[in-house]
């Protein structure tokens, strides 16, 4: 099945293929295994698009979302992962000495 984003966002398709993931544990795991350059690319590409992207999605309620809207929202949620990495740590995880990501568990079945 071909995945698609809403038509105004088709140029983001390569990023969506990597980052449009439906759950927080999946996005966090993707973040954890990313090279820093991937996070920088996701961050720098999405940051200028975010206001329009959210304004567009905010036109709809969640129950009227189609698959393309959902994929765009999931991409925006992965952008948050990249933003924290780039703005706070300038590396793909955290500096050495932090409590290890592998031992920090993210509960399933939470959220929309």
């Amino acid at each position: 099945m071909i995945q698609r984003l809403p038509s105004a966002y088709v140029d983001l398709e390569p990023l969506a293929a990597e980052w449009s993931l439906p759950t927080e544990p999946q996005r966090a795991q993707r973040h954890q295994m990313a090279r820093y350059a991937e996070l920088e690319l996701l961050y720098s590409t999405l940051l200028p698009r975010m206001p329009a992207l959210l304004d567009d999605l905010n036109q709809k309620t969640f129950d009227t979302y189609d698959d393309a809207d959902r994929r765009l929202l999931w991409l925006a949620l992965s952008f948050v992962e990249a933003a924290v990495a780039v703005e706070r740590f300038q590396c793909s995880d955290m500096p050495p000495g932090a409590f290890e990501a592998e031992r920090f568990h993210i509960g399933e079945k939470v959220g929309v």
Partner: protein
Amino acid sequence: MGNVDFATGAPLRSGTVPVRPYIDADYYEAERKRVFGRCWLNLAREEELPAPGDYLVKDLEVLETQVLLVRGDDQQIRAFHNVCLHRGNRLARDRCGNARGFMCNFHGWVYDTKGQLRELPDEDQFPHLDPEKIALKSLACHIWNGFVFVNADPEPQTSLAQFLGEMNGAFDGFPFADMQLTAFYHAEVNANWKLVGDALQEAYHAPILHRQTVADAVAGPDNPHCHLASMRLHGDHHGLSVHGNLHHQPTPIEQIAFDYSASPIYPAPAAPSDSQAPGVNPRRESAWIFDINVLFPNFHLDPSGTWYGTYHLWPLAVDRTRWEFRIYMNPPKNAGDMVAQEYTKVFGRFVQREDLSTVEATHEMLRSGALTELHLSAQEMPLLHSLEVLESYMQGRP
């Protein structure tokens, strides 16, 4: 700022505390019975068991038991040791679900949701038993603001209301039930449960340990050491209000999150309102982010204006703790609101990993025996208070 106990007007105290309670195996053994065996412990939210027959199984390693929480047909939530009365098999095998009753899978004894024995196969062969008089071993179970507490003492020394004391009415009107579980994080930490809890009930560490994350949002030029906005001791429990830096310059993602959230989110300053629960930011400080309430011994209830968080520190051994952190928020209204909430969650994950980063090394170094006491500033008085309360239970106070 923060130099008196707001509840009593007494000056804040600094002082030293002994190391032994954090590392000594005998102390831990006594703590299990004298503290965890006697205090009211929070296990769940009422919303986790919405319908009759809904049940949850909770591990209570510190008391070497498992608790079965179940809502009866009469809507009441009850707590039982998850053990069959026949020969002691574990009764409920799933972690949660909905059931009309519970059948033990060893010999088929069946109990209803009130814990009463309902079926006793081959009953004639138990002439010494009156099945009508047999019920699961219960724990006292009471609800406060939707939080389900149990007490493992067969004869609890206090009611839940007495135990909570002045904390009782502090959250009246807080919309706990409107909020939903938005994030759940947990980890097994190789440190004493009190070291983990201590790291989460003072703000002195924020400018240093959190320098890459939340430091600037909670401490600024007007409050460089992140003094608390206020502090109050309430019997066995206490509350602190964490200062917010009104001059904090949001990062680009923070700006998006603050602009698009339907209500203020962490780490944005939360404007106090008059309709706010009386015990939440009681001084109505405007430079405020959230409160930390430590309900002795191991439950933290941390409300802001429009969200709240909880911590549970569950002892597994003298040097092992299951750390649980939950965030509750209003259901997201739209995509912008959801992205904003995601920022609180993701940012929060990294702040938490900073908080957990010191406690294992601390435990290891305390175990060396090089130190016999620790020094606490007046801003760390909550730690002093928690240890004093703990010691009173250890001395067997009635």
